[in-house]
């Protein structure tokens, strides 16, 4: 159940940036490697957000696929399997380009119109 801790961390991060404004959307990028269950995270988010500025927020989850690059030959590929060997020059070492994210990308907040005074 790391989803509960992760949901708490997401709500805390979003609320900190909301600075008292009501949050409508919380957008989070989740890498395939993080082994997060989306259903479980949504459930936990709803529970944790209840008494926060995120109480009415929709959680948008974007899954980021595992993308790798070989350090030796420069080959880049997307992988469905946790296989960190270059298919061309095994046993090359690889860099992870994507798939490890657990990142609050943006939030959408309600603003009082009169607060946005130009100039």
């Amino acid at each position, binding site marked *: 159940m790391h989803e509960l801790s992760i949901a708490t961390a997401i709500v805390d991060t979003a609320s900190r940036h909301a600075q008292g404004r009501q949050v409508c959307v919380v957008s989070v990028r989740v890498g395939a490697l993080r082994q997060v269950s989306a259903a479980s995270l949504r459930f936990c988010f709803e529970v944790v957000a209840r008494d926060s500025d995120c109480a009415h927020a929709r959680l948008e989850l974007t899954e980021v696929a595992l993308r790798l690059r070989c350090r030796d030959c420069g080959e880049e590929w997307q992988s469905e399997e946790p*296989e960190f060997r270059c298919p061309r020059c095994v046993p090359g070492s690889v860099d992870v380009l994507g798939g490890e994210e657990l990142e609050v990308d943006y939030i*959408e907040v309600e603003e009082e119109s009169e607060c946005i005074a130009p100039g």
Partner: protein
Amino acid sequence: MHRTRVRIVEDALDANNTIARANREDFDRAAVRVVNLMSAPGAGKTTLLEAALRDLGPVRAGVLEGDVQGSLDADRIAHLHIPVVQLNTGSGFGGECHLDANMVRSALPALPLAQLDLLIVENVGNLVCPAEFRIGEDARVMISSVTEGEDKPLKYPLMFRACELVVINKIDLLAHLDFDLDLFLHHLDGVHPGVASMLLSAKTGEGVEEFSAWLRELAARETLAA
């Protein structure tokens, strides 16, 4: 009322990482090296510690035991007459399944850091969650026992990639199991190429000296912090 988008682009676990860095600074100041020991429940973390901690020579070790409930593990370690603190995670939503930086921070006042060279944090038995949460450790070690099967690196890549040493425990049982060690090592190398591994049996003692030596070397590691 209108809606505004606020770009954040921040690791959701930043707050945990900040506390982990504060822990690390405290450990560095006290010149204590810290190991985060992780595994599935029943892989033999406590049994390995009981065997390895007898053989640390001049290294002064302490243990922080993380469990959802109870002090069974801490009681076992206390028999070795080394400082041990039990940390229960049970106050969460039915009990947190991992230690995080803040829990470890809350236990620091109970630890005699000034009298230690090495602190071993035995995490809650779990192959997913502990890998997510840094606690301010110098090294992460995981134990995988041969009774768990050779497919575990493929099923829990996050954990197998998070550690710098994989200890393969219970090798005394190899003769009784279908466990294919070569296949396990092949999967491990695919998930975390080049990661160090060692084979041992905490029960018979075979190979434990290698792990004790690894701990002694870690305790002697210079801190990377300024």
